[in-house]
């Protein structure tokens, strides 16, 4: 699976017991110390560009970026929060900050060949009453953002759901 991030803790390590990697969900990783930022901004691309340009000029790295009809959402590391807030204040746009978040990555080597993973994740977390703040996906992971205090419950529910 390779290194995912220096800050990411692999809770369930994908194991290779046979010649080829196993299909299906094979691991779970968690990265905490994250802040979810929602910036209310008009849908016009030029307006959104102003936000991203200002943040880029401050050298802040963003991830799990999402466009919504009346806002853009992203994550920053908690060390970058103060700087981010300063930039956003200068733009005079309403923002909502959710501190102390964690990104849980459900890992698979071929997520695109696995229908139903999102359903099982949503079901597992819904059953446990864990609020899913944001979701994202790539070919080797489905990422879900939760509040830090929910991590243990969420990870346990996911481990149970995927038999890990």
């Amino acid at each position: 699976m390779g290194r995912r991030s220096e800050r990411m803790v692999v809770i369930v390590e994908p194991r290779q017991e046979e010649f080829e990697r196993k299909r299906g969900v094979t691991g779970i990783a968690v990265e905490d110390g994250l802040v979810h930022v929602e910036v209310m901004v008009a849908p016009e691309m030029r307006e959104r560009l102003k936000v991203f340009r200002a943040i880029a000029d401050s050298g802040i790295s963003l991830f799990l970026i999402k466009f919504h009809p009346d806002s853009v959402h992203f994550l920053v590391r908690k060390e970058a929060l103060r700087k981010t807030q300063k930039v956003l204040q200068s733009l005079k746009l309403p923002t909502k900050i959710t501190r102390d978040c964690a990104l849980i990555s459900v890992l698979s080597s071929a997520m695109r060949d696995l229908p139903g993973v999102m359903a099982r994740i949503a079901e597992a977390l819904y059953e446990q009453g864990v609020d899913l703040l944001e979701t994202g996906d790539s070919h080797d992971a489905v990422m879900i953002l939760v509040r830090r205090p929910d991590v243990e419950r969420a990870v346990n529910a996911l481990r149970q759901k995927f038999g890990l």
Partner: protein
Amino acid sequence: MRIVVQKFGGTSVATKERLFIAAHRVVRAKREGYAPVVVVSAPGRKGDPYATDTLISLAREIDPQVPVEPRELDLLMTCGEIIGIVLMAQAIKVLSGYKTVALTGGQAGIYTDGNFGNARIVRIDPTPIGEALRAGYIPVVAGFQGVTEHHGLGGHGQITTLGRGGSDTTAGALAAALQAEACEIYTDVEGVMTADPRLVGSKARVLPSVTYEEVSEMAHLGAKVVHPRCVEIAMDYRIPVWVRKPESASQGTVIRERASDLPQKMFRFTGVTHLPYVAHLKVHVVHQDDLAEIEAEIYRLLGEAGIVTYFVGKSRNLFEFAIVRDNLEKVRSLLEGLTIPVSVNRHSRLYLLSLAPTSVAHRERRRMLSQIQPKLEIVDAPVEVTTNCAIVSLIVLNTREVPGIMARILDAFVEANIPVLQVADAQHSVSCLVLEEDMVRAVNVLHDKFELHKGVAERLQTL
């Protein structure tokens, strides 16, 4: 013994002329002191007489209403590669006089699970190929296939196929099992390129060297040069993979580093990929509290129907996802008129989904539901569909280390007046959902903005 695995795609064995060009590559490797192991695909492209799709249609045309058993389909599909190995073995022998032996996947010791149509390799016995090499033969192995070794229904030694990109997978797997010096993938392009030359023309550059992770990301996001499963095996077993054209003198692309092998905080802009034929759906839910339950139910239905979602996301009153457009009709039939009862915080509501919320059919459905369920609040959940979308992705080594990527992407798109419907960032890529009519321009705009025409080494940077 210095083993090299050389894989030739369908076009390399489609004509006598192409076959000899490929055979020449094998002979050259042998003369240079290597022990080549050759992997061959079915001759030709889609539509040609022995191509996989043509073989499948032979069985399906008997009666399109009666599905062909997966086991039988696998038997049929492996015929193309078997033709390919015999032709290649003969061409090498005629060209050089070297001894050759054509082997099916099973004869070559490739054992798989019993998942017909998309089998996974569980074990490779290197003995048959090892013996052939020691006896001075050049083994020519059929790609895309293996055999089961489990007993029971379906039994021992059933022929299986490895799914999409199966011949690349065979090549990577044999290279790993034989501890080969390299795996060479011969294809109809010069190597892994910064973008599809059909879209960006002469601006496309061959990448001399990329990491396994970059090329895997590219392959998953639309580049068709080497299958990600082959890359994955090569990465796990540390086998260098070369991608090149059989007749070309250029070295092509080598994939032999892992991103984690590179010095910390290294990054580069690697390439731009595209994936057309995508549809984007947004489900609007009025009451935020009900969103999670509706979301879970819809994802459950899509999962059960075997539909994979991309670009999943949610906000206060909607959740969204993209699908391959071929699945749109299936999704439409699942969601149109779907009712989802929700009970949250002592509220009971019945959500009624519709992809055409202003239609007469929807209004009629709503009216009938109100009569049947007078005590239940009926709430519309309109589903907004954008049919013609494409995913355009910038491949970046270590995306998350680099500030300002999104700003540069948006800058380029704003300048070119290309709307971005949604974005998704991963460890080595940033993908944008755009309208299909903007796809070619979007690829070009990103290629220019990130100066991908410059050499890849020049683009490797440190934060």
